[in-house]
């Protein structure tokens, strides 16, 4: 096991940031931690990285304390946004990060992998937001660590840069485990093999992205026509009208369509929407985002 968090709790004054949170990251897993603002995502990462310690419960990284410098030799993390010393060049920062790790590849190689060749000589103070994010990612991977922790790796970027960054992360992920926090459900779905949803410091969901959709999302059928009376159905379905369409929300869309056909009513423009992760997330967290 790479990371194990066993019933960790953490309070800041009267605020309970983490409440007996349990989850683990195994080899080759890419785990996304999702949650509304203030859910405890940052506290979770801070404890995993040894930046803070839990009030109770146990956090172990490679079977040891995350607070040991020796344990951190197997871990790479990103600095938070725009936090580099301005006067230093990108290649200097990458070489600096790499200097801490015995198995680090040459800085030039990391620079190439992360598409930073054009920026290598640029001073950190002159990087754009997207470029800074790319450098931050490169620093997390610069030591070739077994475990990489990314704190909101693409926050504030436009969709295009975000997608490019995902590509890069996927390319660099081989043979290691990654734990990252994000606000973007799309990001969790694009990168993660597992999603952990937390809110108010408690675990709400831990599973693969498809599970999250299936269990907490609702499916929809929409068509032009008349809704079926619920008496004729024998299962839960609620219908509303929008833009001249009937929109039916139900757990079993297939059964609804069969009922629709059996009833022999006129309908057209039939559409079945699979549940969105967004919806599943909103259901789980009670609408908070």
């Amino acid at each position, binding site marked *: 096991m790479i990371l194990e968090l066993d019933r960790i709790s953490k309070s800041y004054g009267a605020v309970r940031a983490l409440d007996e949170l349990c989850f683990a990251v195994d080899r080759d897993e890419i785990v996304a931690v999702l949650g509304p603002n203030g859910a405890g995502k940052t506290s979770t990462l801070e404890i995993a*990285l*040894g*930046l*803070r*310690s839990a009030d109770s419960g146990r956090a172990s990284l490679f079977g040891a304390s995350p607070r040991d*410098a*020796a*344990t*951190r*030799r197997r*871990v790479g*993390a*990103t*600095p*938070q*946004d*725009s*936090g*580099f*010393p301005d*006067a*230093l060049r990108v290649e*200097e920062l990458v070489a*600096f*990060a790499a*200097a*801490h*790790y*015995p198995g680090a590849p040459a800085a030039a190689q990391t620079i190439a992998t992360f598409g930073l060749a054009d920026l290598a000589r640029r001073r950190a103070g002159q990087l754009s937001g997207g470029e800074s994010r790319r450098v931050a990612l490169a*620093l997390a991977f610069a030591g070739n660590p077994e475990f990489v*922790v990314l704190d909101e790796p693409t926050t504030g970027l436009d969709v295009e840069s975000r997608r490019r960054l995902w590509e890069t992360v996927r390319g660099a992920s081989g043979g290691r485990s990654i734990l990252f926090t994000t606000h973007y459900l799309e990001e969790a779905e694009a990168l993660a093999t597992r999603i952990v949803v937390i809110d108010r410091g408690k675990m709400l969901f831990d599973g693969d992205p498809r599970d999250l959709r299936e269990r907490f999302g609702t499916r929809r059928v929409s068509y032009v026509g008349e809704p079926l009376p619920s008496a004729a159905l024998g299962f839960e379905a609620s219908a509303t009208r929008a833009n001249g369409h009937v929109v039916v929300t139900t757990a079993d869309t297939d059964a609804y369509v069969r009922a629709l056909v059996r009833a022999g009513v006129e309908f057209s423009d039939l559409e079945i929407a699979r549940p969105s992760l967004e919806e599943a997330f909103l259901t789980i967290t009670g609408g908070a985002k």
Partner: protein
Amino acid sequence: MNPLSTVIAHARLQLMDLFRSPGYVVPTVGFPALFFALLALPYARSGPGAADQLTLSYMAFAVIGVALYQFGVGIAAERGRPWERYLRTLPVSTAERFAARVVAATAFGLLAAAVVAIVARLFTPVDLSALQWLQSFAYALIGGVPFVLIGIAVGYGVSARAAVPVATACNLVLAYAGGLWIPPRELPAALQMVSPYLPTRAFGDLMWSIDGGASAAHGLVVLLAYTAAFAAVAALGYRRDERVRYA
């Protein structure tokens, strides 16, 4: 990684960052020599005795500035930054990082003192033997120790915004009152009462002992007392910061 290579990596990064910041290099390396040229040169030209004493005083002043700025202003500015948080995720111990800071500060301190020494050699009849010059740099580093600790205490004690004025005030007031700008006997009578108890005066005594102008023992005892006192204050500040940010 062996500790030495991480210490070198951190010291190198700090030195590159500092050397590329004119806002840091000019005041710490340039000002002591400039003050020497403006305030001390007329007296220093009067003879080798005065030149020796003033040169040694301004070498001490140069090291004090580096200690207060690099530790005081440096720590106050860095401790809240995301970069500091990132450095803590790297496999490097607090001791290694502190050692790197000492290495970088030593390099800057020696440079600032050397610039004073060069100006003195060029424009005054300063008359120190090679051994005495060597001694002057060694003593300058020893005398700088309590000021490093005062710097750390300031760095953890005040905000980033307050650190520059606080460090500057400490630097200028203590240097003047300790008799580093003008010899102690030229100070106003009231200041002469306080002056012997100041760390800057003790640093001066240590430096002046090189050409027999004062007793090194007295200077060392006072410096040791300040070292002990500010080590305690610095440790308190460090622990408080650890508790607030990283508990």
